[in-house]
């Protein structure tokens, strides 16, 4: 008996991601078979490699952040825009109110978004102006996808006054197709994401919007009770200010779009304060659903009714508010199957004095607030969370969780609150213990995770193609940072780059399932991730000790599926849609 047990233990060690068990726990969440060693066998390590990398992006800085407009921007995208196999970085630039409202004669510099071409060896060269993607006006967020089907990633950049669609021409340059495509939008736009919601082969576009503000008539700093935080004058909003409905652009398939948000049920008639956006198949029916993180108001989960329209179901499915029924100040969204059960759960970053909410997906039927049970919430109460992504940082087969923080009020440093960390705040990496809980990885005082910044957007991707996922962070008050993943002893891995058919050449909306022994892992291909940002569209799987994937199944955006068996680990694999 003891020998059998030992054999079982050895087997489970050889392949660390365990198979889920159907057993139900008291929390109603099925309990995966415990790992032999729930602690990571390798400590995840990030190293700040920004210096010398050529990345020198620094957003505009207003010391006092007198206006909410100056606190929200910060999109960053990872995309291989030139198809050289190396992931490039795009930072959205923003403005300050002073700069935006300056008279022409004052000649204050405008916003200039940056595209950094990856030259290999984690060296980058700024090519934004040459590529034609720098002139974005007061930019806010970004999402990427190949919209016109030429095989190259295009960029959609949201802005305070209008948005931009930059079509990648495949020669290293982009052209501004906003007007022609009819996706200018207007009004303070924030998160965005492409998806083929009606399975007609082309990508449609959702754009969240935040506040209805006039740049020349902004609510006065510190004026009135709504512009104060714990006694001190601060920027006004979003509470007390007027929100904006969201936009949904249906792709006509001819390079133009029509805005049909209200018609299809995505118009946000109550004008909530929309920020983060993500498409995902929440109920497992193969159709793209939409989740929107709204600031200080209930979040939305729109279920795809498969007829081109949507039904907002967030309350009844348990993802609108916290378990207490509280509306939270939601910012960013991470999507992932953190228990390897085949269902995509949601992690939402929120304002301080709330907690980051972890909505566990119960087989597509409903979600439950698992924030504290997963042990990701308690530490978050004092922080204002923004960009976030699930990523398997040590390739052990379990999705870990990364997020960045930073307050919106510099004035908070005038007071010391138990309930809130100061203006500059550290990052957080939660290591998945494989038992449904996470453990925060705490770095030393000089560790990049300990660095206190005012971060906003983040994007995850393998910048050096070494099989370990790196992180790029956009900082509101300082320089952007590139964190290289140098985790020693990380497991084996596989990255999959999908090539779709027709106009959706990057297979946005596809779901990749891999099976290794009895474990199945899934990754969705999503345009628009985290907080106003874009993770690399290539999908990464940590494989632990496994050197081979038994089966890969791709559920393509059009509903078709394809499979591949016995794939070697430690490679970047391109799979073309049959």
């Amino acid at each position, binding site marked *: 008996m003891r020998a059998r047990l030992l054999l079982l233990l050895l087997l489970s060690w050889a392949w660390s991601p365990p198979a889920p068990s159907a057993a139900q726990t008291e929390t*109603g969440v099925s309990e995966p078979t415990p790992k032999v060693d729930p602690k990571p066998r390798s400590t995840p390590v990030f190293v700040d490699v920004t210096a010398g990398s050529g990345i020198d992006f620094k957003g505009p800085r207003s010391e006092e952040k007198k206006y909410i407009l100056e606190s929200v921007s910060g999109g960053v995208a990872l995309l291989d825009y030139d198809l050289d196999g190396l992931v490039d970085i795009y930072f959205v630039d923003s403005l300050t109110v002073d700069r935006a409202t300056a008279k022409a004669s004052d000649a204050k510099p405008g916003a200039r978004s940056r595209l950094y071409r990856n030259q290999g060896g984690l060296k980058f060269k700024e090519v934004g102006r040459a590529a034609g993607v720098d002139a974005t006006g007061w930019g806010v967020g970004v999402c990427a996808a190949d919209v016109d089907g030429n095989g190259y990633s295009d960029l959609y950049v949201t802005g305070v006054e209008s948005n931009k669609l930059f079509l990648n021409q495949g020669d290293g340059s982009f052209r501004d197709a906003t007007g022609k495509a009819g996706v200018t939008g207007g009004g303070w736009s924030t998160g965005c994401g492409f998806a083929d919601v009606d399975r007609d082969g082309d990508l449609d576009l959702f754009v969240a919007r935040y506040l209805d503000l006039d740049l020349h008539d902004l609510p006065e700093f510190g004026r009135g009770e709504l512009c104060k935080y714990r006694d001190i004058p601060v920027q006004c909003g979003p509470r007390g200010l007027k929100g904006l409905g969201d936009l949904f652009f249906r792709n006509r398939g001819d390079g133009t779009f029509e805005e049909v948000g209200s018609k299809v049920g995505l118009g946000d008639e109550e004008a909530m304060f929309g920020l983060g956006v993500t498409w995902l198949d929440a109920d497992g029916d193969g159709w793209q659903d939409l989740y929107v993180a709204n600031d200080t108001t209930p979040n939305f989960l729109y279920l795809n009714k498969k007829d081109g329209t949507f039904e907002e179901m967030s309350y009844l499915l348990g993802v609108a508010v916290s378990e207490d029924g509280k509306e939270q100040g939601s910012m960013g969204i991470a999507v992932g199957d953190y228990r390897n059960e085949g269902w995509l759960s949601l992690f939402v970053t929120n304002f301080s004095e709330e907690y980051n909410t972890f909505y566990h997906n119960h087989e597509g039927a409903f979600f439950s607030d698992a924030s504290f049970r997963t042990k990701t919430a308690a530490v978050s109460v004092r922080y204002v969370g923004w960009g976030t992504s699930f990523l398997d940082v040590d390739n052990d087969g379990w999705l870990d969780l990364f997020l960045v923080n930073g307050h919106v009020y510099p004035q908070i440093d005038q007071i010391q609150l138990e309930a809130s960390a100061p203006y500059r705040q550290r990052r957080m990496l939660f290591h998945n213990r494989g038992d449904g809980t996470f453990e925060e990885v705490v770095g030393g005082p000089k560790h990049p995770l300990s660095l206190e910044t005012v971060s906003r957007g983040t994007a995850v991707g393998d910048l050096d193609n070494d099989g370990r996922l790196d992180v790029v962070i956009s900082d509101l008050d300082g320089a952007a940072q590139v964190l290289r993943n140098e985790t020693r002893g990380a497991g084996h891995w596989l990255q999959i780059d999908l090539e779709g058919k027709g106009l959706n050449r990057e297979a946005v909306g596809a779901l990749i399932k891999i099976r290794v022994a009895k474990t199945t892992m899934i990754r969705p291909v999503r345009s628009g991730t985290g907080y106003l940002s874009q993770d690399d569209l290539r999908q990464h799987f940590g494989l632990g000790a496994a050197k081979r994937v038994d089966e890969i199944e791709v559920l393509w955006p059009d509903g078709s599926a394809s499979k591949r068996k016995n794939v070697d680990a430690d490679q970047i694999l391109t799979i073309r849609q049959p």
Partner: protein
Amino acid sequence: MKRTARSILLLVLVGCLSGIGPIRADPQDSPTKALEWQLVEAESALDQGEPRIAESYYRGALRELWALRGELAAGAGDLETAEQALLKARAASAVGVDSVRIELAEIQLHLGKLDEPLKELRLLAHQRTEDPELLESFIRGLIQAEKTDELSVELEQMARLDPDRAHALRQLDAGGALRPISGNLGLDADGQPVAGAGHGALGPRLIATLHRVEHNLGVLQAWTGFENTPVAEADAPPPRPTDGAEPFGTVELRADVGSERVALPTMDPVGLTPLFPDTFLEIFVALDAGDTATALADLERRVDEGDADAMTLSGWIAASEGRAADAERTLLEAVASHPKPLLARQVLARMYWHTDRRAAAKEHVLQAAELGALDRDLSLWLADVEIADGRIPAANRQLRSLDRRFESVEALVRLADIFVGLNNSKAAMDYLEKARGLAPSSEEVLVLHAELALDIGVIPVAAASVEPLARMRPDVARYQLYLGRVWAGLGKMGEASEALLRSVALDPELKEAFLPLGLALNHESRFEQAGDYLRRYLESFPDDLEATAGLAEAEQRLGESESAESRVRWVLERDPEHGRANLVLGLLLLGREELTEARTAFERAVSADPLSAKAHYQLSLVCTRLRDRACASEHLKKYKNALKGPESTFQTMESKAVELELQKQEDPRP
């Protein structure tokens, strides 16, 4: 003004406007719930498409907010802030409200501004010719501005309306302006401490110029130098002599003169003869002149001549100097020879009282009472004796009489205490409200008021006393506890937990704070901390249901399901309808997919607390999963309504206030 104070004020205002009023008769009626309902109703004007009514409501709210702010600032002596607040209050009114205009003018007079407030008061006084209060304000302004011609006309008018008031104002005119110190003390134009009467935002009003208190009766000298002395210190009696003698004489001199608000107008021009006969006055005058030797020689001569008043004074001086035997002998002689030895018996009684000869003291007090009105402190003492002897009705009569005669804060406090003992919280609160009106800066009164209001759950009322306490004495743990309880009662849990954390930081052993702190931290999702405090509370109070249910809530959120369930089952055995325990149980059952049982628990939670947003929300979720669409829809709707409780209404109020302020800027009103 700090946000804390403003927010509390606004919430208090919301409470008052929404019909809660200063006191609710039924202490069982949760103020928070009542507040929510009332606020939702108040908001209905907006919902029902009555923007004009709503605007009127919010304008009134804004005006009252600033007026309250002004009143409190004035009470705290911050006249500049008071003026600014009242200017805003006036501007918020489509039509100027007289009370605000009068108060503003009075404040401005105190700030030394003359023309504008006089103009305003003149206008109002000529509109409301039968209002003596208003006329008095105007006359005080005229005195300050030295407009003698106009003053004489207005004093004539006052003499017709209220002769006593006219008399007092003539005194004021003679004595110059009075600068408030605290309570009933003020400084005259020469900077000398003087006694006045009346309390309130503007300090005392001069009724009689006190005999200069720094004469050479030893301990009386302690009454000099009050300028800028904090309230608490100024109200304290002077230091006691080191030789062990009781300085009751000195205390009484000040107290008797200073607080005789009712009695003084009936006195002679100096205002002292009922208590201090001519003999005394002459002695005092000599002392005032610095001629102590003459004064004492004169006194001795009068004693030798058998002057009973002189004996009384001589005995009093002996008592104040600690010569108890001399004092007793002289005073007993005075009692024997005086035709109406009211004062001698009182001094004797006080002496016996302070030397613990209770029976003798009581005998003289009762006999003095037959001769005339007792002075305030003896009346109080007698009331205390009656209370100690269990004769509550007698004590009640004594204290009511004191209240009528002196508007004695001490009497009001004792009355409140009596009625608390009789479980009549409303009456008790009435007395404390009155005491607070008389002594708005009295820490003792504020504390009692706050404690009672918190105990009976009238949170907006409590806020009015807790806020100044916490502001004046931020280093007192208990006041932070009160503040936390107020914030919690008003649904502001973030502020509540901050205040409560301050309270336990100031006093880590303040066990009473652990329960509200734990619950507030639960509300703020700080479950680990909440659990720590609730466990500590349960160490001292292991049978507390609320703490047990609160701890179970924290444990449930942290995934400690077994312990949580054990605790809620324990609570529910004792109180099957306990709201929080049923809610936690529902969540635990929901986690186990026991949907029907979870639904029952949530239904009980909703029944226990029909305004619990969380309970309705969870019930809607479980109904969804049970495919009971009607139930899900009903409770989702109720959840959303519950969410619009005080918090959202408060925010709406804030929002409207901002809008109105913006409008005012664009369209300034006269």
